[in-house]
């Protein structure tokens, strides 16, 4: 029970972090049809900026400033890069963001170096939040969940209850009509791209402190975010939320469990030894398979339900 509850909490907090990342990706995709390959790179930029700003200003000012700066950078990229490529179609846009991911990772290496940054959790948020049976749940994990939920709530309010949110929703389905009504649709796109990357930056501020801030952090989390966006259904925020939690929980549990096929077979009375054919497959533990699970889920999802959990379009 103790193991179950703690793993569940950890899984939910990791899932919420994934949601912070995938929500931006989903917003950008549903608005502009652009699959932002470099989304995780903005996550990395957020973490590095927060570290650098945090040295001078402290953690909490950096928590606000770093996402804003990341968003500004994203908006500039959209204005002067992506918009030029737009006329060549979606594949060109995908290639553009693919190249951007390379460029950002290499620039980070040139500016900050190859080693990981000593980006730490601030003292206020360090330490246990509460103790469940014998295991303590860290404060920062709680803070992470709080920020993610606050973000979810404010994005929802922004999209559903404000004028700009209405324009964004309208531009999503009827860009020509919205333009004819006098709204600057390219500027709306720039705002959405900036906003989406700012969300990734916010996730970076949190994720960088919770995990590790190094040049390979984008490459390690990037594909997972894609999995979330696809499994949830391209362009569906609610789907992304569901898929984030699902993958967060599945991965957290899988890492902690040492079940294997050999063990299962032994439980039903079939002995598996080293001489059994395909022994390396039988002896695999669930914790070893954990990194593969999201991709397996992705491939299965694309075969059996290509539009994702809550998506509406198949392509």
């Amino acid at each position: 029970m103790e193991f179950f509850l703690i793993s569940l909490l950890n899984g939910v907090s990791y899932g919420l972090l994934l949601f912070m990342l995938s929500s931006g990706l989903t917003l950008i995709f549903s608005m502009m049809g652009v699959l932002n390959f470099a989304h995780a790179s903005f996550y990395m930029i957020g973490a590095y900026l927060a570290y650098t700003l945090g040295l001078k200003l402290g953690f909490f000012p950096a928590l606000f400033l770093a996402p804003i700066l990341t968003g500004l950078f994203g908006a500039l990229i959209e204005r002067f890069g992506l918009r030029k490529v737009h006329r060549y179609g979606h594949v060109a846009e995908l290639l553009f963001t693919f190249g951007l991911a390379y460029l950002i990772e290499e620039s980070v290496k040139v500016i900050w170096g190859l080693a990981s940054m000593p980006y730490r959790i601030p003292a206020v948020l360090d330490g246990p939040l509460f103790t469940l049976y014998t295991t303590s749940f860290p404060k920062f994990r709680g803070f992470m969940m709080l920020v993610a939920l606050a973000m979810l709530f404010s994005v929802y309010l922004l999209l559903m209850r404000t004028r700009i949110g209405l324009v964004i929703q309208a531009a999503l389905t009827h860009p020509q009509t919205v333009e004819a009504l006098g709204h600057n649709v390219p500027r709306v796109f720039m705002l959405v791209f900036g906003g989406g990357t700012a969300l990734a930056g916010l996730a970076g501020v949190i994720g960088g402190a919770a995990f590790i801030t190094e040049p390979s952090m984008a490459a390690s989390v990037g594909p997972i975010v894609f999995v979330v966006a696809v499994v949830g259904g391209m362009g569906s925020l609610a789907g992304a939320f569901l898929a984030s939690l699902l993958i967060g929980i599945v991965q957290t549990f899988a890492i902690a469990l040492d079940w294997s096929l050999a063990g299962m077979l032994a439980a039903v009375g079939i002995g598996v030894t080293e001489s059994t054919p395909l022994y390396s497959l039988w002896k695999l533990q669930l914790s070893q398979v954990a990194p593969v699970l999201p991709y397996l889920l992705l491939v299965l999802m694309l075969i059996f339900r290509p539009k994702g959990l809550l998506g509406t379009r198949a392509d």
Partner: protein
Amino acid sequence: MAAGVLRYQPLNLARWIIWGGTAVLMAALPLVFTQGFAITVISQMGVAIIFTLSYNMLLGQSGMLSFGHAVYSGLGAYIAVHTLNLAAKGQFWMPVSLLPLVGGLAGAFFGVLFGYVTTKRAGTTFAMITLGIGELVGSCSLMFPDFFGGEGGITTNRVFGQPFLGITFGPAIQVYYLIALWCIASMALMYAWSHTPLGRMANAVRDNPERAEFVGYDTQKVRWLTLIISAFFAGIAGALTAINFEIVTAENVSAVRSGGVLLAAFIGGVGFFFGPIIGACVFVYFVVALSVHTKAWLLYLGLFFMLMVMFAPGGIASLIMMQVQLIARKRFGRIARHYLAAGASGLMVLAALILTVEMTYKISVDSATGTLMKLFGMEFDAAAGTAWAVAIGLWIVGGWLFNLACLRVARVWGEIQTEFVEGRA
């Protein structure tokens, strides 16, 4: 009936000259570049050409953007290296020169397997599934150390058994000629494929899948068959890599390799058959030669790729073909001096870029031994204000001149195109 059909089949002289010239060039290259390092570079280029052309069967010919092509070359390489090790133990007879065939068949096998899943969809969804499959196989490489060799990879020795006609594949030059033979054969086969009915249908499926369906073709089947053939050639490239380096590691199936081949194909130009060949050579040059000079080579490569995506989406090949059109109509002279101006100012911008990147790198990463550095044959202090002033000056002046020159090139280009149109009318 068949005997009665008249066929007009002139000898295609240009084609014979181009292919013969390519073969002669590949045979003569090691005679010109005799150093060991140069042989390594051209060997890698030969392998990269096969791999990139096989990738372009998907991206250029069939419109399938794949983020997981290294799966086929990498798994082909692994099967080949295990076969080689078994053959060396004397378990069965297998000459090294036929090993690429084993790799190719292995690649095709995995093409049948994974392709069935991936080619169900086209476009962005296809790209996503290939990314998933790529990551899946990449993560598996650490799960099955028996097959993938874990962190250290699988090593092998390509020299075993009795030499055949004095060929042992010990010296690098013999491996180069093996690669060159496979390279020219693969190039010819892939070119021939693009003229088969399947190759033509692949183009049709790329351009208008709906119409291809109406004509009566199963688009999924066309994509699947194309992917299998492409995976076959990728497997050949993988096996040649295994022979060349005598080691296969998890890097061979990784996302880095898949991304690299995409960069190479796109930089070369996916619209022409010879584009990826250029792209492969440029890419290997960046990877092998430039990485000796600078740690930031991937930054330059990424930047180059971005510029191509933004300003020349047809790649280097399309830029060349644009000039060929001008030369054929005797207008190249008029635009050439503007090219020179753009090139000269472009060099200034490039110098500014290199200076900025290298100085930043020196200060932030490599400053343990002091900030003195050497660039363009000059020695200076990267932390000094003068060096940065020079860089900023180069950015401003070079950028301004380059912008001016580009505008002029665009204007003259437009004028010439208008003349062509008016001349036709």
